[in-house]
């Protein structure tokens, strides 16, 4: 075991899979000698060579196409999109192409691709770096979308993503890259994709969150406990497909739900989660399912992040609304 930050756990997962499987290729803008703009691929090119870990020209669409083409030759591509705000450049390769490979070929081709990309607010990045665009890819049949919130989970989920024989979009929250350390086993292990985790048990209300909002929800739960409200916190970990089994089990116990996301209200996946809950457990609900989200504006100018991004106070306020409904 070692104490690792999330970024170190991510590097460790890629190193593990580069070692395990000679077909794994890591590529993107500045991921080679430079080791990535966040050091996610630090040391990997030196260890595995330029044929396994390499830089690309500055063109996201080309990177997506490269991954699809490499897969036809038996490779297992792990491309990086430098910031997920640049998704729009590669939307066709991800949502129009690799998501459909298996389907359109009637199972004769597939795309075992893991697209890694940082996103998320709170670190005052310039425009179109921090936007939460997971909702766009979560709406695409054929893609799985994974968002870890801890170093331990980042490693296990990334190894699972790389081993998955269908495309996975793996989104890494920038604020969580180095915000804390955690014990991470040095050996390989996996965490199943599509499985949520109960991060705190409680009986009064279910808080469903993902990404940086998991930590906001846990902080809110601490505050609520002081007022005698026991919140159960679920970390979705995979936002598509969502693990409804874990959610419904919790809702049947607590009868109250708040869904929390950093994305704008009209974006993200909170609406889809709320819809599933009302379809599957309406008779267990004592109050409507409420959402904590960002406002429906463009992602804010850097100085305004604090007033714009949802935080634990917003969560406490919403919980009080569902408790007192």
């Amino acid at each position, binding site marked *: 075991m070692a104490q690792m930050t999330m970024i170190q756990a991510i590097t460790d997962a890629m190193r593990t899979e580069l070692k395990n499987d000679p077909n794994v*290729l890591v590529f993107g803008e500045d991921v080679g000698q430079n080791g990535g703009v966040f050091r996610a691929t630090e040391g990997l090119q030196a260890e595995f060579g330029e*044929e396994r870990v390499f830089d*690309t*020209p500055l*063109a996201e*669409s*080309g990177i*997506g*196409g*490269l*991954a*699809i*083409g*490499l*897969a*036809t*030759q*038996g*490779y297992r591509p792990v491309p990086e999109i430098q910031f997920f705000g640049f998704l729009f450049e590669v939307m*066709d*390769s991800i949502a*129009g*192409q690799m998501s459909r490979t*298996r*389907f*359109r*070929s*009637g*199972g*004769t*081709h*597939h795309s075992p691709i893991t697209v890694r990309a940082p996103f998320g607010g709170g670190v005052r990045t310039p425009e179109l770096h921090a936007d939460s665009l997971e909702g766009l890819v979560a709406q695409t*049949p*054929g893609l*799985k979308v994974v968002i870890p919130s801890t170093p331990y989970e980042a490693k296990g989920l990334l190894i699972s993503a790389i081993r*998955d*024989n*269908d495309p996975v979009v793996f989104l890494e929250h920038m604020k969580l890259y180095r915000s804390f350390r955690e014990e991470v086993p040095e050996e390989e292990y996996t965490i199943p994709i*599509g499985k949520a985790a109960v991060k705190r048990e409680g009986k009064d209300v279910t808080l469903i969150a993902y990404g940086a909002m998991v930590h906001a929800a846990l902080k809110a739960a601490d505050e609520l406990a002081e007022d005698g409200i026991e919140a159960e916190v679920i970390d979705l970990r995979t936002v598509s*497909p*969502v*693990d*409804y*089994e874990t959610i419904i089990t919790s809702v049947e116990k607590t009868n109250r739900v708040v869904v929390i996301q950093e994305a704008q209200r009209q974006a993200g996946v909170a609406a889809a989660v709320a819809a599933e809950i009302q379809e599957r457990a309406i008779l267990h609900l004592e109050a409507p399912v409420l959402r904590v989200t960002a406002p429906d504006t463009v992602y804010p100018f850097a100085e305004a992040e604090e007033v714009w991004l949802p935080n634990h106070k917003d969560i406490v306020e919403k919980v009080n609304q569902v408790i007192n409904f």
Partner: protein
Amino acid sequence: MFQILNEDGEVVNKEFMPDLSDDELRELMRRMVYTRILDQRSIALNRQGRLGFYAPTAGQEASQLGSHFAIEKEDFILPGYRDVPQLIWQGLPLYQAFLFSKGHFHGNQYTEELQAFAPQIIIGAQYVQAAGVALGMKLRGKKNVAITYTGDGGTSQGDFYEGINFAGAYQAPAIFIVQNNRFAISVPVEKQTAAKTLAQKAVAAGIEGIQVDGMDVLAVYAATKDARDRAVNGEGPTLIETMTYRFGPHTMSGDDPTRYRSDDLDKEWEKKDPLVRFRKFLEGKKLWSEEDENRVIEEAKEDIKEAIKKADQYPKQKVTDFINYMNEELPLNLQEQLKEYEAKESK
């Protein structure tokens, strides 16, 4: 413009005459005649409602089949939506090509031996993917190439440029073919770019570019063969512009070329018909006769009849088929929906 045969079937460029045997020359003609008949019959079948999406190919036989004739069985083809003939001559059974047209997944279920993607509808996407296929071949140490096709309009896409530029940066064994038939639906090539040729777009990627008479099957073959030889020798990709023409509409989905093309222009290009020119050349060498041609026509018609029958009789698609082709292991939502549709389908 690189040319070997003129409109009268005379060799005007002996130096670059490709080294093809008499049998190979006859086979090239057979394929062109067969494909012309296939186009005529496909249009008729589409009009009868027995085929669906269809992009006519008449006029482009030299461009499509001359380039395809230069590649090997283990090379990988990334066709555009008009490039079904290349797939057929690479081994796609005709009835599957018809199922593709009708919109049935089995049309795209290629055997392991058929190294190709199904026709690409998103113009340009095949170009960036070809760069990836070619890089993969290079990393594997294969002596093979990725070959891909787009039209004149497609050269305006970002993916067109990114594709050739990536292949150039990695010196990957790719052949990029631009079939310049002068029109992207109704928009003439002059409205795509101020560039005097499309081949010169290769300069932006720092790769070889060549403009070829796309109505001259020997010139297209020779240029592609040369590009392939250089690619497998590690000398990187080539962009080939074939100057061609589609005699028919853009697709059979309601396009009317009389709205944007003059009779004069059509007639001018019909004189360049690749079949007429190559037929004259072969007849001059006593390699082709009317009987040969009629035999191919009959063979094509018979094959097409059989294939459309087989396509018509192919089992209908079910929602459960679609669900099962989404993922290797179905996620929770699809597991649920599979059960739902299994119940519906068993009623």
